[in-house]
């Protein structure tokens, strides 16, 4: 082997060895200058080829060019290798604590009674009921008399009443006054639900509140029956609770319906097993209902021989309580954010 080949081989080997030792960007740049630069070792070597006899020059030149390609490729590979190491190091150093809390999105929330009312109304809307609202300060006529509860009627004891101006102006004790208001301004068929605030002159305890939300329902049409009332209420219970829930209907008395109905459902808290809330009966009284009393129909100019109606009324708080396990009705209007924010 010619001396020049030996020299090139020695240069190449040394260069490749040094390159593996060059550990950072400046070291490999220095390496590049030292071997591949204009006055680097390889350039010097190339210049020395000119002193060779002319027949040896082409082979030596080829060998030098091949060595240059090798070194350049090695440089590129080493450079890439170092970049990747550097990236790995940087990423390693950028480690964060993923268990720190997320940056808060400032969501608020709706009151649980709003959630409950929306759910109730949605279910009845799906069954073709419209939604209407009415005044909270009412006339005795609509709150009582039009509903077949004349003055001094013993049934008035069922609704302890706040008066604004006795005997004619009061805070409505239920949303039922809207029955008469709606029937006065529409002709059958009627299918409507009425949510709203109601008031009763009643002391507060864990299950009694003097202000509450009620949802009233009313349907009037030819041919409506108590079986239809049962069907609508069962459908409601199945959707607001769960599809297989058991329901129970018993006779009850409300002066503006006849026959009168009370619907109980399987206790949603214990699923009928019996618990403190259902007093171990497994049943929860959910709502009052019935067929609209013929006198109520006559009071608004409907003919009870032509149309029938049914009506129902339920307390939104009671439904929210059994759905969510709220054991004190005063929680709703106490407005402690620690309670309310659990519903968001």
């Amino acid at each position, binding site marked *: 082997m010619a001396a020049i080949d030996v020299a090139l081989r020695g240069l190449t080997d040394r260069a490749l060895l040094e390159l593996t030792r060059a550990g950072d960007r400046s070291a490999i740049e220095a390496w590049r200058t030292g071997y591949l630069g204009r006055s680097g070792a390889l350039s010097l070597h190339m210049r020395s080829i000119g002193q060779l006899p002319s027949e040896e020059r082409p082979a030596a030149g080829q060998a030098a060019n091949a060595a240059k390609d090798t070194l350049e490729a090695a440089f590129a590979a080493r450079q890439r290798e170092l970049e990747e190491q550097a990236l790995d190091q940087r990423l390693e150093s950028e480690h964060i604590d993923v268990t720190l809390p997320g940056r808060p999105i400032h969501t608020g929330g709706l009151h649980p009674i709003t959630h409950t009312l929306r759910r109730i109304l949605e279910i009845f809307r799906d069954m073709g009921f419209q939604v209407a609202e009415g005044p909270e300060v009412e006339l005795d006529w609509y709150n009582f008399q039009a509903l077949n509860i004349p003055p001094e009627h013993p049934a008035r004891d069922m609704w302890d009443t706040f008066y604004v101006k006795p005997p004619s102006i009061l805070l409505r004790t239920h949303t039922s006054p809207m029955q008469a208001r709606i029937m006065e301004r529409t002709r059958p068929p009627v299918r409507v639900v009425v949510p709203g605030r109601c008031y009763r002159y009643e002391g507060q305890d864990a299950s009694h509140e003097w202000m509450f939300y009620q949802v009233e329902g009313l349907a009037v049409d030819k041919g409506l029956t108590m*079986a239809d009332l*049962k069907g609508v209420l069962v459908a409601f219970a199945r959707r607001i609770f769960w599809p297989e829930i058991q329901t129970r209907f*018993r006779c009850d008395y409300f002066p503006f319906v006849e026959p009168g109905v009370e619907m109980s459902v399987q206790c949603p808290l214990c699923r009928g097993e019996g618990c403190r809330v259902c007093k171990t009966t497994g049943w929860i009284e959910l709502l009052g209902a019935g067929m609209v009393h013929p*006198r109520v129909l006559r009071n608004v100019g409907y003919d009870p021989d032509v149309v029938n109606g049914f009506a129902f009324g339920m307390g939104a708080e009671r439904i929210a309580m059994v759905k969510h396990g709220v054991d004190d009705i005063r929680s709703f209007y106490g407005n402690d954010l620690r309670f309310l924010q659990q519903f968001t």
Partner: protein
Amino acid sequence: MRVPLGWLREYIDLPASADDIAERLTMSGTEVANVIRVGSEWDRVVIGQVQTITPHEHADNLFVARVNLAREQVTLVTAASNVRAGDVVSVVRAGGRLAAGPRVEARSFRGVQSNGMLCSGDELGISPEKQTIYVLEADAPIGANLRDYLGDEVLDIELTPNRPDCLGIVGIAREVAALFGAELRMPHVDQPNDGRPAGDVVRVFVDDPDLCPRYTAGYVNGVRIVPSPQWLQRRLHLAGIRSISNVVDATNYVMLELGQPLHAFDADRLQARTIRVRRARANERLTTIDGVERVLPTDALVIADAETPAALAGIMGGSNTEISEGTRRILLESATFDRMSVRQTSRALRLVTEASKRFDKGLDEELPPFASRRALALIRELAGGSVAEGLVDVWRPRDALRTIAFTADDLAALIGNAYAAEQIEDVLRPLGFALERDGERTTAIVPSWRDDVTDKADIAEEVARVTGYDAIPTTLPRGELPSPADDPGLRWREVVRSALAGAGLQEVMTYSLIDPYAVSKLDAGAPFPATGPDEGTIPIHNPMTIDRSRLRTTLLPSLFATVAANLRYQNRVLLFEIAHVFLPPLEPLPREEQRLAIAMAGRRSPPTWNADTAPIDFYDLKAAVEAAFRILHVPLILADAANVPWLHPGRSAVLRTTGDDRELGHLGQVHPRVAERFEMEGMEIYAAELDLDALMSLAAEEIRVRPLLRYPAVERDLAIIVDGRVSHERVAAAVQAAAGPLLEQITLFDVYQGAPVPEGHRSLAYSLSFRSPERTLADDEVATAMAAIEHAVTAQLAAHVRGR
């Protein structure tokens, strides 16, 4: 009402267990709230007879009794001093007990072994006596299990006000008979007639028959007033009535049995043995048997003698004519009073009694003579004496009984279930209806005690409830749906609610009633505490508390109270409420308006490691209000508000929209004095209240989209230095007007005060985006617009552009 089954059994052979009877009664409308079981927990409680009773040798106050239990004898120690040899008593033997809990153990009292315990009536639940040992009837079976002798079950019934006929045990028996197909046995009535005719002895005048449709008087001469026998006392106790004396107990017994209240007067204390039923005279007084002297309301109906009131009709007797130990002759009243009159008087005097609870529901006019004869027989049995013949009966018999004609199809059409004619009869006859069939048509004659049954619907209910509502199928209404009549306000309100919750606010619901000083607390300039109640709020006539005695005209006081209460637990409170306010005058109803109120206080973010810890300021509030406007597509315009009394004068604004003069509401920082009055001192509170009805009426129902522009925008930044009192809105409006339609968007990105901006001035930095819908803008077009802007702000606002 309490119905002991041992008593109910007098009128019906019980067809089922107490629980089954309770269940069927409840399902059919007579709600049994509870079944009370007397003796169910008794264990080793037996009847014994005291053989000897002697003082304990080593203990004062204790006695040693030897008690015969038939097959054996026990010795026990007792502290009660009323026991005598020969008394028949109840004994809990060692190891037994009266109720769930610890058992009675054999133990030694100072050297004497006691193998049981004697029981008081209260411990047994059969009498109110706590201090004495209960002494049973002498003929009680010695050695027998006490439960077999005295155990009972009591139905605790919550009656609905339409069924006064069930205010007597016979009424409940009639229900049970109808429900189970059992036979009702009416109590036997045989008036003893061993005296002169009642009409010869007493005189009755009903001056006000409108309030007293029927008055009957019976008379007994020669009674002896003594305690009632034990069986009677026990029955009354189980039914919840205190035993008084034989005659009074007899009247109460018949009231509980038949539902007809009765009253016995000491006839010798009635002047001229005369009863006059009349309205009270002005300032007339009566001391009732509860010892209270009462001034009688002028419309109150009284039972007077020839001169003075002797009883409040249907409510309570007077002490002047009360039965006492010395009473020998009694006048027995059995009457029907107008339910409204009883109700009014009872309420006016705040006096509710067993009698008034029955009369105010309206009682059967046919009942008084029957009840009277029943009571007279009982009184004679218990108190002796001779009963006058017949009754004085002042009554104008009413019209014939009500009839209701119906067909089985009528019932099916209302109930949605077919009932056979026999089924209908099997329900109605046991309930006392007489039925006449004429082909398809049935005429029901309504019994006198069922005044609640007036319509075919009532007949339908009787049939449906007795056969059970569970038998009715469930169907869905098939008729056409009402024509849609959507109320956009209801939808918009929910949209606003959701938008505000999404904007970070928590919805609350506060009481509609406020205290009479709450609104004046909102006036920072008004004296505090206020000198008098608010004039502008409508008072509640019968408030429960002063705190809740006015209808609110603003949501703010309740919202502020909620903020204050929550600030005790957290340092960040962002709330809103949507509710009605009630605005005077009453014509006849107040105007109800839906308001939206917002209150914000504390840090912008919940406290966490990487939060924006800056406190909430005006612009957080404004953004929340904007969220409500934006969701309704109503442009929001704010202007400085003058003189909003609850707001910081420098940080308050009035809410409007474009092209409308109406003030929709106000927002700003709550005046520190107002904040302090609502116990929110030391924090900046931001709040808004607005007329949500008015805002929703402006909501844009339909949104029209603009086409997206294809040509590129040209962006320029511009800082304008202007007097600090010139609002951003004015500057932006001037810029927009000068630039014309090519200026597509103007965004404020910095507000700066301080050097090098001159004192009293500020620098408003805008980024402007120019765009043409038709072409790519040339630089000189934008330059022309920028020049126009600069000229306009310089000329109109005495401003200059920074960097020039």
